[in-house]
């Protein structure tokens, strides 16, 4: 059995935010692994906890956040226990991050060459001249035309897509082991988005970085991810390989997400929206948090939290529908269509054990 090396192991993470209204339970018992060289997509709506999860990996939580429980293991050490000073050595060097808005994540008063060179000088102790030379290489790598002529330009002199390339150059200049991309293309046009995504894939192949990709765009996930984790109300509700999540989804929330997106061949009729809004995490609901919005909710969903049920060696979902005693339900048409396709394309795959399973 092939065991891929885990770069990051998150176990039983719980994070609360102290607010005037009370304690918001933003992350509620989240566990996952990030494997070497893979792209793990975390999908979910705003407030589902996807950004908070990844910010905790960077040690970038807001001051009112409190990590109640859990561990984040990186190279055998727990990131949670590290001091801010230690984190400064990891951040940007071993774990780098790309944010959504390229304009606010660049320093408007600093030339872009210097911004790319800065991590090299800071983390690798390079002299300015060497660092700038490497920054130039990086600019070429991310596809900025005429890099020699533009290295001394300021961010405002670039378009949105070019700025995001610069942000990627900064993130990758130290060849980080882990790259966290938080909605990196949401602010961009589709044509530019396609270029940036291709660029990220290309760079990943060259320097073997593991990527955590956060987005709510399932189209982007389908093209980028090796594995997908679906988050809802501070929990992972389903995870599996990209094919398993898109073609054999099990959790009603995953069904709802896939169903509410028009594909290019969705006939005009009515899109199946998920009714209602996500729950308030000041008082998280008992049981399955999605029950209130789900057509498939059973009595037990409002009483007891579902554990992860195993679908395959790589695919787990936390829904009572998978319990042997649960009644058989028929998913929405679109999901049935996907599952039929899955059955047809079923191919033998090397099973990978995942330790984060609880039964």
């Amino acid at each position, binding site marked *: 059995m092939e065991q891929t090396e885990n770069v990051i192991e998150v176990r039983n993470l719980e994070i609360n935010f102290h607010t005037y209204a009370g304690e918001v339970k933003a992350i509620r018992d989240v566990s996952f692994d990030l494997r070497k060289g893979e792209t793990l997509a975390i999908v979910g709506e705003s407030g589902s906890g996807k950004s908070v999860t990844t910010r905790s990996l960077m040690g970038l939580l807001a001051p009112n956040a409190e990590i109640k429980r859990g561990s984040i293991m990186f190279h055998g050490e727990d990131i949670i226990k590290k001091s801010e000073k230690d984190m400064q050595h990891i951040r940007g060097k071993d774990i780098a991050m790309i944010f959504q808005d390229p304009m606010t994540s660049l320093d408007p008063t600093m030339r872009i060459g210097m911004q790319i060179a800065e991590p090299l000088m800071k983390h690798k102790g390079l002299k300015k001249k060497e660092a700038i030379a490497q920054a130039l290489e990086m600019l070429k790598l991310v596809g900025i035309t005429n890099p020699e002529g533009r290295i001394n330009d300021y961010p405002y002199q670039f378009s949105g897509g070019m700025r995001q390339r610069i942000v990627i150059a900064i993130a990758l200049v130290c060849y980080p082991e882990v790259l966290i991309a938080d909605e990196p293309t949401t602010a961009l046009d*589709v044509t530019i988005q*396609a270029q940036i995504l291709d660029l990220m894939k290309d760079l990943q192949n060259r320097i073997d970085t593991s990527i955590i990709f956060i987005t709510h765009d399932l*189209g*982007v996930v*389908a*093209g980028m991810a090796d594995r997908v984790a679906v988050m809802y109300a501070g929990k992972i509700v389903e995870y599996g390989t990209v094919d398993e999540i*898109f073609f054999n989804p099990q959790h009603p929330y995953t069904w709802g997400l896939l169903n509410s997106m028009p594909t290019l061949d969705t006939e005009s009729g009515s899109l199946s*929206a*998920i009714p209602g809004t996500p729950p308030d995490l000041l008082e998280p609901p008992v049981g399955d948090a999605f029950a209130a919005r789900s057509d498939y909710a059973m009595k037990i969903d409002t009483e007891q939290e579902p554990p992860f049920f195993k679908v395959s060696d790589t695919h787990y979902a936390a829904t009572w529908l998978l319990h042997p005693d649960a009644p058989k339900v028929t998913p929405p048409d679109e999901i049935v269509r996907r599952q039929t396709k899955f059955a047809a394309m079923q191919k033998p795959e090397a099973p990978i054990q995942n330790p984060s399973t609880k039964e």
Partner: protein
Amino acid sequence: MPDERKKILEVHHLKQYFNVGRKDEVRAVDDVSFDIYEGETFGLVGESGSGKTTTGRSIIHLYEPTDGQIIFNGKDVSKLHTKKEMHEFRREIQMIFQDPYASLNPRMKVKDIVAEGIDIHGLAKDDADRTKQVEDLLDTVGLNKDHSSRYPHEFSGGQRQRIGIARALAVEPKFIIADEPISALDVSIQAQVVNLMKELQVKQNLTYLFIAHDLSMVKYISDRIGVMHYGKILEIGPADEVYNSPLHAYTESLISAVPVPDPEFERNRKQMPYDDSSEMDGKKRRMVEIAPGHFVRASEDEVAMYTQRAVDAGLVTSFSE
């Protein structure tokens, strides 16, 4: 094939230039013409900077058009001189904005936001009538009447967009310009808002100009689509046709870049690059009807090429010229 339906909006050679005569003159909208039929949804797509938002804003007179003609319901509205004319025009045509956070006044209660149009146009007999109208509107967009005395910050993005829609509906307009109304919302909420808009369209016989960059959503909601690039419309046609058999190379490139929630499709995806030099060669171009109701901006020597493409795609059976 002449279209029998009534044209509610006709835009002829609309031009919207900024900084005219200066070095930094911008031709945001440059010679754009299209018609919108009553009761349909016309989708306007394009990348940022293509001029799609400016087109919408020029139509509703947030800008004074540089040149061209806008005919709404048979009346020329491109030059509205008096306040009264503007007043009447804005009752018939309303707008829903992209950012549900920025487009609602944070210091006004929901009932006052929704009733602003009612107040301006004097549509309520008395206070009780005003309250009733507001409550009905909130009900129409799926909000609760208890919500009327709250402030915008108490609502989620999707709910705020519903408030924006209620405000637009308050004056009983015929035509709504929706500028990226769902871009700022979560996927599951996007579908809710789009479905609401479709439902209202049927119930109140509304016509929409739907401006967006999310091509899959535009295709889903629109009857016809116009594709904009560099301030010009390059292709107009029935939504399915534009998507399945785009004639212009730019449209083809744009559609090929849309991510599809299907991993198998994504693995085999080929993105078509677009070479904009053909747009820049200075040749005279106009909208040519290549297939019935399907127009492409073409120069005289390109018509044959586009017609051949239409024949290959099965949009027309043979050369009609």
